[in-house]
């Protein structure tokens, strides 16, 4: 938009009004999100983290897997700002590289959960009846098992690897996307424009893809943002338990786990990975909350 300023006291010329009207609904969401300071902070942290993860090879002062027995269990110093671990690896570099794994797992797991859960929910909500009942009862079964135990069971069955970790976390998150999307699909299904689409002869697949899913987008986005936080946490927990990322790969959960043995002498080994996890999860949650508020049409002024 080339005429960005003067939006509040826009001159009453038709031209400006016309331009103002052309703004997409997303612009409106962005405008409201910007007013929420906490959400902006959360979003900045998330963006920062993404940048760090992308630029990890540039930013990390050392190779994260470079061991140096002479330098083991060093406290924070100017040479190693966050200290070194029991193999003498630089903690800062490991945390920077760990952000890659965490984000990767977080986004891919949520992607798996949101895509499959969303499709299942949309199908259930759109068709209703027995199919809906069947899908939702399956989701209830998944929901009845605590998420982390379900993920442990899936990783246990599939074996430990990065991909299986993401699948496990994704599946354990699947029911909530299915439920959220189904609830929206139920309301969207009754809208006149769905009937109108049917009246022009659109196929069911087209109605689901073009009418149902786009109109369920707001809750999916909010749920996904919050879901990434949860996925990162789950992945870290699984790695902590030794079921996720295997050493020596730098991952926050497994760093936490291996640092645990040196808790008395070198608390920074657990403190910094833990801090990283908390900050990221907190930032994502605040951002998700802000996003939910700005996507809520009821708060639209």
């Amino acid at each position, binding site marked *: 938009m080339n005429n960005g300023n003067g939006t509040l006291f826009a001159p009453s010329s038709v031209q400006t009004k016309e331009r103002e009207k052309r703004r997409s609904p997303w612009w409106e969401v962005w405008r409201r999100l910007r007013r929420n300071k906490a959400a902006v902070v959360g979003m900045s942290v998330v963006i920062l983290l993404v940048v760090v993860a992308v630029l990890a090879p540039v930013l990390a002062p050392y190779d994260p897997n470079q061991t140096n027995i002479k330098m083991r269990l060093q406290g924070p110093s100017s040479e190693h700002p966050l200290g070194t671990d029991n193999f003498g690896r630089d903690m800062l570099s490991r945390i920077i590289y760990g952000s890659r794994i965490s984000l990767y797992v977080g986004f891919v797991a949520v992607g798996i959960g949101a895509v499959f859960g969303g499709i299942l929910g949309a199908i259930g909500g759109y068709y209703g009846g027995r199919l809906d009942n069947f899908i939702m009862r399956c989701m209830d079964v998944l929901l009845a098992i605590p998420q982390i135990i379900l993920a442990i069971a899936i990783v246990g069955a599939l074996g430990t690897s990065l991909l299986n970790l993401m699948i496990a976390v994704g599946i354990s998150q699947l029911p909530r996307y299915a439920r959220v999307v189904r609830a929206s699909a139920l309301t969207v299904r009754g809208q006149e424009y769905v*009937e109108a689409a049917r*009246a*022009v002869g659109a196929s069911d697949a087209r109605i689901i893809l073009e*009418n149902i899913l*786009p109109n369920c987008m707001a809750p999916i986005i909010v749920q996904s943002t919050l879901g990434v936080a949860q996925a990162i946490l789950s992945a870290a927990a699984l790695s902590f338990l030794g079921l996720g990322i295997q050493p020596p790969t730098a991952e926050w959960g497994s760093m936490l786990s291996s640092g645990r043995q040196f808790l008395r002498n070198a608390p920074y080994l657990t403190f910094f990975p833990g801090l990283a996890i908390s900050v990221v999860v907190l930032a994502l949650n605040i951002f998700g909350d802000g996003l939910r508020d700005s996507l809520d049409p009821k708060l639209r002024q």
Partner: protein
Amino acid sequence: MNGPLLEVADLNVIYKTYEGTVAAVNGVEFSLEAGRTLGLVGESGAGKTTTALSIMGLVPSPPGIITSGSVNFAGKNLLSFSEKEMKKIRGNHISMIFQDPMTSLNPVVTVGIQISEALVAHQNLSEAEAEKKAMEMLEKVQIPGQRYREYPHEFSGGMRQRVVIAMALACNPGLIIADEPTTALDVTIQAQVLDLMRSLKEEFSTAMIMITHDLGVVGEVCDHVAVMYAGRIVETGSLEQIFGNARHPYTLGLFRCIPDIEEETSKIRPIEGLMPDPLDLPSGCPFHPRCPQCMDVCRTVVPGVLDDGGHRVMCHLYGKGGAARG
């Protein structure tokens, strides 16, 4: 083409609800020639929309069931069509204009894509061809073609209804069913939209069923009128026959409800009473509890249909006893 474009015969539709069976449409019969317009008039709940949905094969099921009847469109009975076959008819040969343009457009999809939906579904056009055609359709309804990429919220109510009309006309269907297309619009916009619909109808030589409860709209655009009451067509005929020589007490009552600008009346005269509960229709003529000219026979016998040169009335005042005893 031989015979009428659309012929509805003995259509019966019920809704099965928890409270009981609702007889929404009871033996509706009418026919419509290509290029003509039929006005379907009646109060809310008279079964107008259900009749329209039956023609489209869109009666919500459950709870709706079409128990009997036939809908012959271009010589084929649509009620015997499978859902897959109906999809090819909808939008392509029969399309529908919905009541409220605020809700009948998908808010998150551009109007252009919504117009091209039918084109892509039925005419196997490529995206680019469909886009070109959709722009043409927008121009046809007097909206600049470059607004193709805009979203429904960027249009006013009247413009949205014109977008809906463009959607309905995109594939040049033989029949358009307009379900109260002007009810949600204000009066000046109503006139615009009606004018537009009439001229497009002539341009494309499309037949139309205009569902409305506004007799003014009927007088303006329709060639034939069918008056519905409690799921039955109580009177039908050409526009002149109905407007010049209405016979059924219900139709007369409807006309009396229109305030006359020349006559000095302090009050309009509504028809006494309310529409009967469709769960429990009265015996005999469904209108008898409200009819000012009710006779004994009306309470027990369903009146037969008197046909007088295409002007058909279902009332004991004009027929001899009941042809259809019920």
